[in-house]
């Protein structure tokens, strides 16, 4: 079974955000594989270990994205494809078209991705790519098994659990709880250096270019109003609880 995994390199979730010239500053930032995409990589490797086949890690982004792809290779993916985002409009529609174009060059039974990215988090690209490829999709999956051309999944729907069967090829996105991603081993890291790594450009994929416009565009970026430390309540636990109940009832009509 051949599996393609879509992944994105994101800021570490413990990073603070600073702005520089109207953009998010990348100075000194630690980058990671988007945590939801890590579940997707892990699941792809487990499926390969069970059913055989190839795992291809695919990512779109600037040159630093290579590092995230190397991580996927070190975890156990067989090959990596990097799509250089130069010349591709900064919009999910264009990203999905580029990714779908790259997937059309691949033989795959299953495409896996994360349910959203922890940075710009639009939760669009994977589903858009599925529609573009004409394959069914299931998002936010916490359990996955494949048997004879059908994937059986459990989908987390805001706490409810949906059991779904979908015919392959299909695209499935991972939710937290799907698995516990492995750490790359030292031999894995060494082997990753020798695995195939392909770079693709917008031009080679026939996407982007002068004629295509972004469907949406950022006009500005700001930091949220910073919250100030408020009031520490005083007195016995009983008195503090009473004061808090009163403050909350006065401060909000919700209670």
């Amino acid at each position, binding site marked *: 079974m051949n599996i393609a995994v879509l992944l994105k390199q994101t800021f570490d979730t413990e990073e603070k955000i600073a702005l520089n010239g109207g953009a998010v500053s990348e100075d000194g930032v630690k980058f990671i594989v988007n945590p939801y995409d890590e579940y997707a990589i892990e699941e792809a490797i487990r499926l390969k270990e069970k059913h055989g086949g190839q795992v291809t890690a695919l990512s779109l982004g600037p040159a630093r994205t290579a590092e995230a792809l190397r991580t996927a290779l070190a975890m156990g993916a067989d090959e990596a494809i990097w799509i250089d985002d130069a010349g591709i409009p900064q919009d999910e529609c264009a990203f999905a078209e580029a990714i779908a174009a790259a997937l059309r060059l691949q033989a795959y039974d299953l495409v896996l991705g994360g349910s959203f990215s922890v940075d710009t988090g639009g939760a669009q690209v994977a589903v858009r790519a599925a529609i573009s490829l004409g394959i069914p999709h299931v998002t936010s999956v916490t359990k996955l098994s494949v048997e004879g051309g059908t994937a059986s999944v459990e989908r987390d729907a*805001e706490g409810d659990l949906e059991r779904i069967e979908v015919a392959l090829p299909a695209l499935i996105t991972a939710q937290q709880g799907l698995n516990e991603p492995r750490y790359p081993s030292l031999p894995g890291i060494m082997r990753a250096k020798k695995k195939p790594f392909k770079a693709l450009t917008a031009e080679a994929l026939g996407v982007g270019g002068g004629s295509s416009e972004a*469907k949406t565009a950022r006009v500005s970026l700001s930091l949220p109003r910073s919250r100030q430390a408020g009031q520490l309540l005083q007195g016995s636990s009983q008195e503090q609880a009473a004061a808090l109940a009163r403050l909350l009832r006065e401060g909000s009509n919700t209670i």
Partner: protein
Amino acid sequence: MRNTYLIVAEHRDGKLRRVTLEALRAAAACAAGEDEIHAALLGEGLDDLAAELAAYPVAQVHVIESESLRNYNPEAYVQALAPLLASLRPDGLFLGHTAAGRDLAPALAARLSAGQISDVTGIEREDDGRIVFVRPIYAGKAIERRVFGSAPRVVTVRPNNFLAAEPREDGTAAPIARSAAASASELRTVVRDVVRKTAGRIDLAEAKIVISGGRGVKSAEGFRPLEELAELLGGAVGASRGACDAGYCDYGLQIGQTGKVVTPEIYIACGISGAIQHLAGMSGSRIIVAINKDPEAPIFQLADYGIVGDLFEVVPLLTQEFRKALA
């Protein structure tokens, strides 16, 4: 030129979800003059819901009924909406940023070759008439303002950030148009069953009050006092990544940059120290309360009210106080 907007309604347990009325309000914020807002309602046995929705300020309620639409199924929903999208040719689509909306919106956007702005928390109309969509990114560590190029436009709205639309003042009802969905025999996606783990419970993303527990809760049973308080106040229980990783609760409850972002009226953090990735998921709450043994816990730096103390002592006392006040 008259624009047409379409909201895709969501319902649960036979009730319209509040986020649908919030999406209607968001669509209204974009509409002007002769613009029309339509509503699509999909499922099975929808008579009551259609009548309820028709009482709101929409031009028409489009009801699409089929057994294959009883549960959310991406493929079935996209297929069922296709004829309506073709005939209505909406300039804008509005959905909730919910389990179903997050899944359906980009699928429809891709079909329409439309741009999408996700997880919108505000809509601003500039002096030149341009409409700007506000959305938190990095789980709220930064705020992005975004615009569309050309129509059609697809928007998902974050629950709890727009006022719910009000029913029509004059008590009239919008016309209801019914159609049966095409046969679903060719679907590649089959929903076998849905286990309702949340029946009767309030959804975390939509809750007005969230009582959240961290490592300080110490065990699964340790969530009990939090659940009692949430139950009394009609709120929902959430958790930090620490509590989820320790196995005290389901990952479905996790609040943070991984997990859910919540913006309730009142957020009560119990035994949560306040890692950056957790703060990102809840700092948009209107009132934040922290209860923690450690006075140095970072959560106190952004809490409106703080209690330095043992949550197992304070939370039951708080429940008692509210019980007295609400009696």
